[in-house]
């Protein structure tokens, strides 16, 4: 890591001082608190955080113990269950159900063709329409997806990357057509393209024009969508692809630094956009390592933002994150056992101080969640929030010799990766990350870790209950969600109707504008994409126009 400015900023002047605790207490006491008794079941009153007078406290630099002084005493995490399947109407009904049963935010899963910017009538989409998420071809589908849902009030998360700018344009269009101010739209779009080249592999364009699209959306959101998080920097998929916890931490934060540099290169002021960057981590089954990972992430981000990039606003230094339990930890064998895994993983996320949480459904190793499985997943979070009492005390494991040491070790391992990337990028993390995408380094590191783990299972040195141990009693599969093949037909008909009804000249003009503006990296593409969405240009058409200019990316195959 390059040396940062040597001056001591006010945020740090407090560390090691006996004033640390009183300063935190003051911040805590000025926070609005939920109206619940902060005590144990037996009536023992609880402090909001524990530690020595000169120790680190939540909401205080370097935020290892949490971004806020009062944490869950003020506000529980957002229980945000990821949902999407079939047509826009199918998913709209699931959204309304989740909101009615106490979910506090929406999270949209798109089908594979939408994620890759292809329309439902694309030859490569055959068989995948509405399968792994909801099919969106045009703004008309987006309007159906959010019909009857107040988009100015509910916060919405959208998990999409390659086609993020195009889908975001359509969501803005939903607001525009229903009379909701852009400034009122709140939520998150994943829009983290770098980890696609490293792990999830849902890329379309080469890395550089893709990063430009990310930066365009950051710029646009900074100017017009003050309540929107334009990037969710995601370790989740890196971990699911097989990385270790330390790699997840390191690669994710490195990508974060790369986006910071891309935002600065786009002419933005750091403290204008950095507070809107958010993170998304995995909650795997190795309980304490996961908690240490979240703590290390907060501390690293604070240090880098202040010392390397010169942030002055505390909000730029405070890492906030969403968590999802580890899909890859779930088993198809004895699937009900997954309820126990998910509860443990979710608890790690909460003890690690997550701002929002998705708990996986127990049947997800078999299919998309059934209604019942989706409800049980949400109930698991409610048990943690309402019954266990773990929400009363922030960072309850802070000060544990074990967890503090693990936090330091993960931080150290991550710093080694940063040093490598920084060196390869000659002082630019963005260049270092792109260089390592180009030569396949991330993919090799992740594949090596995945294979090593599989070898451990094969050798019986790690027992996956129900898979390589305790295998009796597999009573067959529970009923799973079935996607009616009629979904694809219905979506194709609806797409044909949209194409029939629109003004073809306007569509052509919009596509020409996208191509022209794509060729000029100084222009922000968002206005052209919003105009195209309003004219019912499809996802595939807008993405195709961009691809004409940007080209296509193919990874190196290796074993």
């Amino acid at each position, binding site marked *: 890591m390059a040396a940062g400015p040597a001056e001591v900023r006010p945020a740090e002047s407090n560390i090691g001082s006996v004033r640390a605790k009183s300063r935190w207490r003051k911040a805590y006491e000025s926070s609005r608190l939920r109206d619940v008794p902060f005590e144990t079941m037996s009536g023992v009153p609880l402090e909001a955080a524990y530690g020595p007078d000169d120790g680190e406290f939540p909401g205080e630099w370097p935020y290892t113990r949490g971004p806020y002084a009062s944490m869950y005493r003020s506000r529980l995490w957002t229980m945000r269950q990821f949902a999407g399947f079939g047509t826009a109407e199918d998913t709209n009904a699931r959204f309304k159900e989740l909101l009615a049963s106490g979910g506090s935010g929406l999270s949209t899963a798109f089908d*594979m063709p939408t994620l890759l910017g292809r329309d439902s009538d694309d030859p*490569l989409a*055959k068989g995948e329409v509405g399968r792994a998420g909801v099919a969106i071809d045009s703004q008309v589908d987006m309007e159906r997806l959010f019909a009857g849902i107040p988009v100015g009030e509910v916060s919405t998360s959208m998990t999409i990357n390659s086609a993020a700018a195009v889908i975001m344009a359509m969501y803005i269009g939903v607001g525009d057509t229903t009379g909701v101010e852009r400034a009122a739209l709140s939520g998150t779009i994943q829009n983290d393209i770098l980890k696609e080249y490293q792990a999830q592999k*849902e890329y379309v364009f080469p890395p550089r024009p893709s990063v430009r699209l990310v930066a365009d959306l950051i710029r646009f959101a900074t100017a017009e969508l003050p309540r929107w998080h334009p990037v969710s920097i995601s370790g989740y998929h890196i971990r699911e692809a*097989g990385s270790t916890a330390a790699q997840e931490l390191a690669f994710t934060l490195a990508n974060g630094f790369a986006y910071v540099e891309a935002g600065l290169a786009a002419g933005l002021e750091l403290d204008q956009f950095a507070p809107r960057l958010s993170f998304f981590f995995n909650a795997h089954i190795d309980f304490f390592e996961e908690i240490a990972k979240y703590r290390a992430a907060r501390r690293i981000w604070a240090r880098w933002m202040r010392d390397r990039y010169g942030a002055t606003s505390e909000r730029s230094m405070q890492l906030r994150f969403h968590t999802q339990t580890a899909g890859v930890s779930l088993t198809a*064998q004895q699937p009900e056992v997954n309820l126990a895994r998910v509860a443990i993983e979710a608890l790690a996320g909460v003890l690690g101080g997550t701002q929002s949480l998705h708990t996986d459904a127990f049947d997800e190793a078999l299919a998309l969640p059934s209604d019942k499985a989706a409800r049980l997943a949400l109930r698991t979070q409610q048990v943690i929030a309402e019954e266990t009492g773990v929400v009363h005390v922030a960072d309850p494991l802070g000060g544990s010799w074990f967890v503090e040491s693990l936090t330091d070790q993960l931080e150290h391992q991550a710093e080694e990766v940063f040093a490598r990337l920084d060196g390869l990028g000659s002082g630019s993390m963005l260049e270092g990350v792109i260089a390592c995408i180009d030569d396949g380094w991330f993919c090799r590191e992740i594949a090596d870790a995945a294979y090593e783990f599989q070898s451990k*299972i094969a050798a019986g040195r790690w027992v996956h209950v129900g898979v390589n141990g305790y295998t009796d009693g597999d009573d067959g599969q529970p009923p799973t969600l079935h996607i009616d093949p009629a979904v694809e037909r219905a979506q194709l008909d609806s797409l044909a109707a949209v194409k029939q009804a629109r003004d073809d000249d306007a569509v052509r003009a919009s596509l020409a504008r996208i191509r022209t503006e794509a060729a000029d990296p100084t222009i922000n593409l968002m206005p052209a994409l919003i105009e195209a969405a309003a004219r019912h240009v499809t996802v595939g058409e807008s993405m195709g126009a961009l691809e004409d200019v940007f080209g296509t990316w*193919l990874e190196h195959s*290796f074993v």
Partner: protein
Amino acid sequence: MPDRRAGRVLLAKIGLDGHDRGLRVVARILRDAGYEVVYAGLRQTPEMVAAAALQEDVDVVGVSMHNGAHLTIAPAVVGALRGAGLSTPVVVGGIVPDVDLPQVREAGVCAVLGPGASNQEVVAAIEDAIAGVAGSGAGAGR
């Protein structure tokens, strides 16, 4: 490490799904078991797979699917191979619900390896596929 050439295996993901962790792990398991692995990787079509199978003269084709499109894609892969005049056996890996297994098998797929398949089950399924034994595998190999 085995000292013989056990066979040539083509591994591919069909369609848009990018979840390649399983396919990459399987590639290494098979390589360690002495197979020659031709790794076609992501975004393959059934036609591309058939062309590669012909050109590389492989003994078995393994396709990985996590996108719920197995009922469309599995028959299409078998069909493309047969259309190219190849009798190469096809093994599917990934998430295929039990209720869909008979239909996938009827389409001409000789084994399905589900989540949690062990290294031995992976190798046994490929061995049996090459030997022309249908319905191989137990447990997670279905």
